[in-house]
Structures are given as structure tokens and as C-alpha cells.
């Protein structure tokens, strides 16, 4: 059976540098960083006292949640995910149904790493005090991983798959590919896909303890996230959510809605934590395999790729990632596609990174630009030796890309690569 064509018809984002698509679009083109000092991290004696944190007024939530849902809400990832998800849905020209019949052909695949950490902390204190009876009804729904897909599915009345995937930092990109597969195979017409990540010390603390966050930039937060730079010293933790309405071309045309881009295909895999791969490091061969099979699955040639939105977190692994792209594509030097990393502007939004970065990638295709990488004027020499300097722009370029590859890699030695095409 031939695959059905799949397109993107709606976008939503809650990013450290823009909490709606239009602000985010401007911020990435202007090179505006969303990384800031976080007083709480300083009080708690974190080494890294900065982070990518979305900023909005509390009453903004009234546009998305009812008063009951807001009572005792202590799940930042739920806030980000619902805002991004509902925005994407409306952006796609879809209405919020109050019908008694669920939308049988519409689903939600919305990933997260961990949800409602602050709510869980509150619950732990109460339980340990012997006061479990005072937890209230929302501890479960705010802390279950699938709380985010459950909230969105209920708000929208979705009757197809409603689930939450989790694969560390590849979660968001994986969610897009899960939605793509389900629509391509004919099991659904519309899927709200995306991912979200809680913010705060309890999420970021574990990474601080691993000493993989930069600690020398507490006084100059916007300089701290330095993907591909010789002076990169770790990733800046971030948070937020990205959401995409993914739809069969057939259904989108029938609705006569705006199409942002097409998903040609992709691949997810794992390096099995073998051959250099581990819980925290990628098996390079698996990364290359993932990219190669994504290209094959999309029915294109590696030369068709005009730009790459990398994973590129600003650790020592950036050089290895560039090398993997070079090998997988068989391209280097001036022949290499343009490449950028959103993490220079927002940090590493963990489970949300793949979806937020995909929103940025699709905006590039739709609006004909390649956003600039900040903080990599001092390109890493190993990267310099592989890729022509002009292919790593430090300022936003006017460029009409036809095909952009987006990849994400995560703890557990898991990889995801998706191929987007201008429509």
C-alpha cells in the first residue's frame, strides 16, 4: 500500500524566547536569546544558575484552562503543553468541539520526560507527614506522564490515539514521526503532535550534578549556550513546549487550510548502547544509520538536503555530531548544507527540544530564512575542518530551502531524524 502524503497545518510554541509563534518567529530571526538568570538556582547553590525559561503573565492561563483546572495547578510542563497545543489547533483553523461525539479521526501524541514535578514534590511532603488524605484529586492527573495528552485530548474531544511518548531528548521529534506514521498508514487524519518539559530546580538538578552544564556564564546568561563553539562548555537547561498539527494532505486540502510544510518521512532508532554508545553517549554508527534511513524513507537523495537543524547541545559531542552528518550525507566543506542549532538561543529544552526546534525548522521553510547561530564566532576547530564557515551562519540568512533535515538524540542512545519539505 502506498503511503499517504502528510502535511503540517498548525504550529504552537512556548519557548524561552517567545511564548507564541509570531514572537518566537521574530526572536529566532533577530537572534534574541531566552536564557536568563534564575534566582532560585542561585539560592539553591547550583553550579549553573541560568536557564531557558518561558515568561508569561499568570492570567494568560485563563485563556486555556478553566478555574477548576487552574486550582492547585503546579505542573509547568502542563501549562506549556496546553498553551502550545491549543494554539496549534486553532492555528490550523480547527475549532474546539463541544459535541458529544469525539473526533474519531483526530488524536494527540504529546511527549514529555517527566510531568508535574512541583506537584509531585508537594505530594511527597504531604505523604511523608502522614497526610495523604489531603492530596486532593489532581495529584495523579498532574503527575502522570500522560497528563499532558489527557488534558489536550479532553479539551479538544479527540477520539483517535491519545498518548504520551517518552524518549529523553528525542521525544519531540519522535512524537512527530509517530504522528506521521499513523496518518500515512491511514489510521488517523489529524494528530496534534508535540512535546513539553517542566522547568525548575528539580528537573535541572540532576544535570547540574552530572557537571554537564556551563558554570562560568552566570553573569552573562545569553553567552552561555555555545553550540559548535570552541568555548562550548555544556548545555544550558531549558523548558517549554512545541506543538504541530499533522494532517493527511487529503484532509488538509478538503478543509482548504494553510499548509506550512510536508513531512516526507524519517526514522527513529537506537545504538543499543554498544560500540561507543552508552546511557549518555551516542553510538555514532547508529546516528549515521538513523540519518541515512530517514533519507531513504523520504525518497530523496542526501544532496537534496538544503539545511540541517541539528541536535547540537553545546557539549564536546557537537564535533562528533557534525562528523556523523558528514559521513551520513557524504557531504562536507562547501558542499555541506546550512546547519544551525536553536539551542544557542533557548538552551536545551530536553523533552521539548525536538518539537520546539521542529517549529523553528518549519518556520524557516515557510518564511524562507535560515536563522543564525549565536555564540559560535569561535567555531570549534574540528568542526571548522569539516564544514565551510559560511554553512554555519552567525546571522539570519534569506534563503529558500526546499528540504530541511531535523534530528534529535537522547539519553538511552536513542535517535530520531525527520525530513521536512517546503509545500
Amino acid at each position, binding site marked *: 500500500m502506498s503511503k499517504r502524503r502528510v502535511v503540517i497545518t498548525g504550529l504552537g510554541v512556548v519557548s524561552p524566547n517567545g511564548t507564541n509563534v509570531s514572537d518566537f518567529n521574530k526572536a529566532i530571526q533577530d537572534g534574541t536569546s531566552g536564557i536568563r538568570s534564575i534566582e532560585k538556582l542561585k539560592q539553591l547553590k547550583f553550579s549553573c544558575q541560568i536557564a531557558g525559561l518561558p515568561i508569561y503573565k499568570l492570567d494568560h492561563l485563563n485563556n486555556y484552562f478553566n478555574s477548576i483546572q487552574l486550582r492547585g495547578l503546579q505542573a509547568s510542563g502542563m501549562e506549556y503543553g496546553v498553551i502550545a497545543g491549543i494554539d496549534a489547533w486553532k492555528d490550523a483553523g480547527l475549532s474546539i468541539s463541544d459535541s458529544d461525539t469525539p473526533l474519531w479521526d483526530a488524536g494527540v501524541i504529546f511527549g514529555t520526560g517527566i510531568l508535574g514535578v512541583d506537584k509531585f514534590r508537594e505530594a511527597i511532603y504531604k505523604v511523608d507527614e502522614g497526610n495523604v488524605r489531603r492530596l486532593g*484529586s489532581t495529584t495523579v492527573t498532574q503527575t502522570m506522564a500522560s497528563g499532558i495528552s489527557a488534558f489536550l485530548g479532553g479539551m479538544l474531544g479527540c477520539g483517535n490515539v491519545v498518548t504520551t511518548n517518552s524518549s529523553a531528548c528525542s521525544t519531540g521529534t519522535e512524537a512527530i514521526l509517530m504522528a506521521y506514521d499513523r496518518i500515512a498508514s491511514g489510521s488517523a487524519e489529524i494528530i496534534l503532535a508535540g512535546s513539553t518539559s517542566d522547568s525548575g530546580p528539580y528537573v535541572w538538578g540532576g544535570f547540574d550534578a552530572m557537571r554537564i552544564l556551563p558554570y562560568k556564564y552566570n553573569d552573562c546568561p545569553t553567552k552561555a549556550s555555545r553550540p559548535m563553539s570552541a568555548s562550548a562548555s555544556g548545555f544550558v537547561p531549558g523548558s517549554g513546549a512545541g506543538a504541530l498539527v499533522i494532517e493527511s494532505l487529503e484532509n488538509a486540502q478538503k478543509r482548504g487550510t494553510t499548509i506550512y510544510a510536508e513531512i516526507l518521512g524519517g526514522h527513529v532508532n537506537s545504538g543499543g548502547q554498544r560500540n561507543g554508545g552508552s546511557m549518555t553517549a551516542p553510538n555514532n554508527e547508529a546516528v549515521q544509520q538513523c540519518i541515512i534511513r530517514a533519507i531513504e524513507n523520504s525518497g530523496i537523495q542526501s544532496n537534496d538536503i538544503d539545511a540541517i537543524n541539528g541536535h547540537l547541545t553545546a557539549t564536546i559531542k557537537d564535533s562528533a555530531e557534525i562528523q556523523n552528518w558528514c559521513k551520513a550525507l557524504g557531504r562536507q566543506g562547501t558542499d555541506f548544507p546550512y546547519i544551525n542549532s536553536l539551542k544557542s538561543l533557548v538552551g536545551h529544552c530536553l523533552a521539548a527540544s525536538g518539537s520546539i526546534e521542529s517549529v523553528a525548522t518549519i518556520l524557516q521553510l515557510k518564511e524562507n530564512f535560515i536563522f543564525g547561530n549565536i555564540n559560535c564566532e569561535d567555531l570549534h576547530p574540528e568542526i571548522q575542518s569539516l564544514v565551510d564557515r559560511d554553512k554555519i551562519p552567525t546571522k539570519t540568512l534569506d534563503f529558500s530551502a526546499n528540504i530541511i533535515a531535523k534530528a534529535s538524540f537522547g539519553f538511552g542512545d536513542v535517535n530520531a531524524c525527520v525530513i521536512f519539505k517546503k509545500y
Partner: protein
Amino acid sequence: MNKEELLSKLKTIIAPYVQNQEALKNLTENTDFIKDLEINSANLVDVILDVEDEFDIEIDNEAMEKMLTVKASIEVIENKLAIK
């Protein structure tokens, strides 16, 4: 606290959870929380916690199971206040 005051406080507590606003307007002693006011059954525990906070009482599981109507709730609250 007389019954009028108690009823008015109870009404304020349950208001945010009520899905049938019409039934809330016509609240009587016989109003049923789930059938008439269409309060989500999962939210009944939240109503109980709010009642505990408002009246500074503790409602045990047995008493809580009875609190499905306005009348039963007022009786439970009055009993708990009396032994405070």
C-alpha cells in the same frame, strides 16, 4: 453559625466545581451534588478539603461518604462543629 450562614458558605465552596449553573441558582437542601449540580465525582474530595479548610474541621471517610447532598453535608458539618 446558623443554618443560613452555613448554607451560604457551602454554596461558595461548591460553586467552582458545579457544571450545571442553573441548578446552583435553585439550590435547596435536597440538591444532589452529582445528579443535580453535575459535579465531577473526582472533585468531591476537593470539595471536602475545601470544607475542612473553611470550617477548620476534619471529615473522616465515613462522614465524607454521606456528603452527597446539601442536606447531608450541612448535617455532617454541624456535627463536626459541635464536637470541636
